[in-house]
């Protein structure tokens, strides 16, 4: 459905349109809220954000997609919530001590592979996903990621949003977010590698 029609239905208070957007966007909204305020109050922030969305919708000008606009409202609400609690948001410094990619011990001192990646028995994504066990193993790996990495991974690799949009929503630098994305993907890579090795 074209976005303008959806927006018109939302402005009219159409219950089915509400249901459609809540179903489509709620989990992404939760991810954004969690990354900024933490899991404990993310639900509350998202509920407030929905009300802000409905209030502000007549002013939506369509300069970004509806989803990006909604996620920015979540981000703004989450950040003002932090300010109220005298906390502030930090996406972490990309140059912190956590490794960027594959663990240090996988390489020798000259930077060559000391423990090269093992060849996977199953190579195609479709085949990999036929295993329920592997699916739950990947989900666990994603669940264990720090909230900000989980958010960037899900917006980028699951929701297909551009890095530019993601950086605007979270207000973090592109270089920082790319490092966080790479760390997150690497952890999922290691989970699949470990699964294949067993």
């Amino acid at each position, binding site marked *: 459905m074209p976005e303008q029609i959806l927006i018109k239905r939302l402005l009219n*208070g159409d*219950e089915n349109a*509400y*249901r459609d957007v*809540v*179903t489509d966007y*709620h*989990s992404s909204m939760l991810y954004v809220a969690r990354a900024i305020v933490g899991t404990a109050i993310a639900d509350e922030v998202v*509920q407030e954000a*929905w*009300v*802000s969305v*409905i*209030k*502000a919708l*007549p*002013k939506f000008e369509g300069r970004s997609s509806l989803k990006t606009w909604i996620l920015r409202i979540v981000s703004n609400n989450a950040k003002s919530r932090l300010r109220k609690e005298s906390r502030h948001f930090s996406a972490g410094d990309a140059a912190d001590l956590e490794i*960027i*990619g*594959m663990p240090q011990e*996988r*390489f020798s001192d*000259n*930077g*060559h*592979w000391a423990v*090269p*990646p093992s*060849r*996977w028995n199953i*190579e*195609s*994504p*479709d085949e*990999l*996903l036929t295993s329920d066990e592997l*699916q739950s193993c*990947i*989900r666990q790996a*994603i669940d264990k990621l720090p909230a900000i990495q989980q958010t960037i*991974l899900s917006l980028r*690799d*699951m929701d*297909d949003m551009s*890095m530019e949009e993601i950086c605007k929503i979270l207000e973090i630098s592109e270089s920082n977010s*790319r490092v966080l*994305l*790479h760390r997150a*993907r*690497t952890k*999922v*890579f290691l989970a*699949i*590698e470990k699964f294949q090795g067993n």
Partner: protein
Amino acid sequence: MLSCKDISHLASDHIDDNLSLLMKIKVKFHLFICHKCRDFIKQFRTTVKVIHQINPLPADQEAIDLQVQNLIKAKQHIKPDDVDRS
């Protein structure tokens, strides 16, 4: 010349096509001579595809219903003059 470790750091930028032309050439050269990194990049690419395809967990229907009902209530309480001050 780039090391294997460098390649492991650049993997995401490589597969997302986010490298400068010079870095692109350096990475391609390394991959040409190093089969371990070729394997690594291939599997890393597979990882990203798998993440992309993994089914989202089914949404919590009760939570959705509750949210929709809250929105309908909220909508009824918004006065036209609230709009510009949100």
